[in-house]
């Protein structure tokens, strides 16, 4: 029951200093009504991926390969990347909506919240009379816990949490099939963040849309997502059900990430850091991009690029253990970073 199938998607940034392979041969499935978490460090290509799905990339970004197949409820699959202008406009927001990282920045500072919701309704549902549209907008705001009187407010008159909710309200306006959320809560404090996560789950249950939830905060993903994809240097290195990934990560990078998070509850655990620094995307290490930082790297890792192989509960791209990856021993290790 996939609603979106990303196949071999690659995006490059052409820059004078060299080509940045920001998204490199990424294949992912999004199932109807699920929350797919995408985790990865800064610069690993998460936002680029999100923009590519909405076909929002700007120069110097170039899609160099792959397809994004969208399965409409009734009909067959269409490749989002091949849609013509009119079809693209219809696809956008009606089928796929996007919530960006910073709500302040994704709301037009000079028009009211109401107008920004109305904008969408007017374009996509032309026959709707004005009055109905206003009612609809008010209803949407109420859904996300904002009073209808805020329709006439400008973004700067709302608090950070309210703005984020307003953006979500706009995303819900056309009842899309997919909502991509690119770090929607990073700018908020934990308590407010918690509120909004709760909201998202509730709305998802109500409307049944699928969510691609992007963040660098792995522990957050563990809580909210159904499945998780971990990206490193433009590639997906591991996917799996959230609980499974948490319990038994198979890629050394996933493990590293998990072990470098201090835990709030339970006994104090030895923390494990990942040595080295994230790679330069313009000159990726050969073979497995992670091998220079990997504690369990094999000789082949530096020459053979691992492929994403299905395994129990998900996929992993690692040469260890016949390409299914193994958990690295969890004992105390010496600190090797600089």
């Amino acid at each position: 029951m996939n609603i979106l199938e990303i196949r071999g998607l690659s995006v490059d940034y052409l820059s004078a200093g060299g080509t940045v392979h920001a998204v490199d041969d990424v294949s992912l499935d999004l199932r109807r009504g699920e929350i797919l978490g995408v985790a990865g460090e800064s610069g690993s290509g998460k936002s680029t991926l999100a923009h590519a799905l909405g076909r929002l990339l700007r120069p110097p970004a170039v899609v160099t390969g792959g397809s994004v197949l969208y399965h409409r409820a009734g009909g067959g699959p269409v490749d989002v990347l091949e849609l013509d202008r009119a079809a693209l406009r219809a696809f956008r927001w009606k089928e796929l909506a996007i919530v960006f990282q910073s709500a302040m920045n994704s709301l037009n500072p000079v028009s009211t919240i109401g107008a920004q919701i109305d904008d969408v309704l007017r374009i996509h549902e032309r026959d709707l009379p004005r009055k109905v549209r206003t009612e609809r907008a008010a209803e949407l705001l109420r859904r996300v816990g904002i009073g209808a009187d805020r329709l006439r407010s400008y973004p700067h008159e709302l608090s950070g949490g309210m703005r984020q909710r307003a953006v979500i309200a706009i995303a819900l306006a056309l009842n899309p099939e997919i909502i991509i959320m690119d770090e929607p809560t990073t700018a908020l404090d934990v308590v407010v963040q918690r509120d909004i996560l709760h909201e998202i789950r509730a709305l998802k249950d109500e409307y049944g849309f699928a969510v691609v939830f992007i963040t660098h905060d792995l522990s957050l993903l563990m809580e909210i997502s159904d499945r998780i994809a971990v990206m490193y240097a433009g590639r997906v290195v591991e996917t799996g059900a959230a609980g499974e990934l948490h319990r038994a990560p198979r890629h050394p990078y996933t493990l590293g990430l998990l072990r470098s998070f201090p835990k709030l509850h339970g006994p104090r655990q030895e923390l494990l850091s990942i040595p080295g620094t994230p790679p330069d995307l313009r000159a990726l290490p050969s073979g497995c991009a992670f091998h220079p930082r990997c504690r369990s790297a094999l000789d082949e890792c530096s020459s053979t690029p691992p492929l994403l192989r299905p395994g129990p509960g998900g996929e992993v791209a690692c040469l260890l253990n016949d390409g299914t990856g193994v958990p690295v021993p969890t004992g105390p290790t010496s600190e090797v970073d600089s």
Partner: protein
Amino acid sequence: MRSWKIRIGLLILAFFALMAIFGPLLLTGDPSATGGEALAGPSAEHWLGTTQTGQDILLQVVHGSRVSLGVGVLSAVIATAVSIAVGLVGGYFGGVVDEALSVLTNIFLVLPALPLVIVLAGYLPQRGVTSVAVVIAATGWAWGARVLRAQTLSIRRRDFVEAARAGGERPLRIIFYEILPVELPVIATSFLATVVAAILAEAGLSFLGLADLSTVSWGSMLYFAQNGQALLVGAWWWFIPPGLCIALVGAGLGLMNFGIDEIANPRLRTVRAPRRPRRESAAVLETAGEVGP
């Protein structure tokens, strides 16, 4: 990455700088000398023709470049120095001094510069190159000061300045070693813009007959060309070169500014779409077609 704009800008400027520095040494001769045939078009003897009094226009353009660029650079140096003093010091120390300086800056900013220059120059007893430069600088520093102050206000709260302060650096050292280098691109753009404005102002003043007309500059050439109705008598070779030189220098400086801006703010770069992307990814490009007034 060196942008082509900076390169072309530099090329133009280098050409004129060389002209100003070495031109008069190579093309010796008195640019005011009235030897030749009057109002002769370009010829082998006078490459750019002659004026109504038989002065060689090429000679005037070359010698005039020294004065015009000199006034431009001199007044830009003065104006930039003032704007650094006002903008950086005021911005860094804040308080009453800054308030006062910033009001002063804003006043000079809204006062129309050219009319003020005209009025000031009208009173000027000596209209030598230096005094004209000073008058132009007196009205041209405010823009830079404002930009620099705004920059300084934001930079002085930046962590590295706080860190320097916490490390025990003295205020003047912070201003000149920590803040100034960071603002160099801004200073450079404001300097270049001031040079253009100053050259234009000098030309305007000369054109009105308010600069020293016994000194040959591009502005005074235009004055005499206008005075001699160069265009009415068809002497385009008298009218075009000085104006074109001014515009070219300005374009050179403008291009450099453009380049610097692009380096400081990469978003401004003009981008070439890759020749044959497998897929068109440029959202902007693909929708551009339906844009219309």
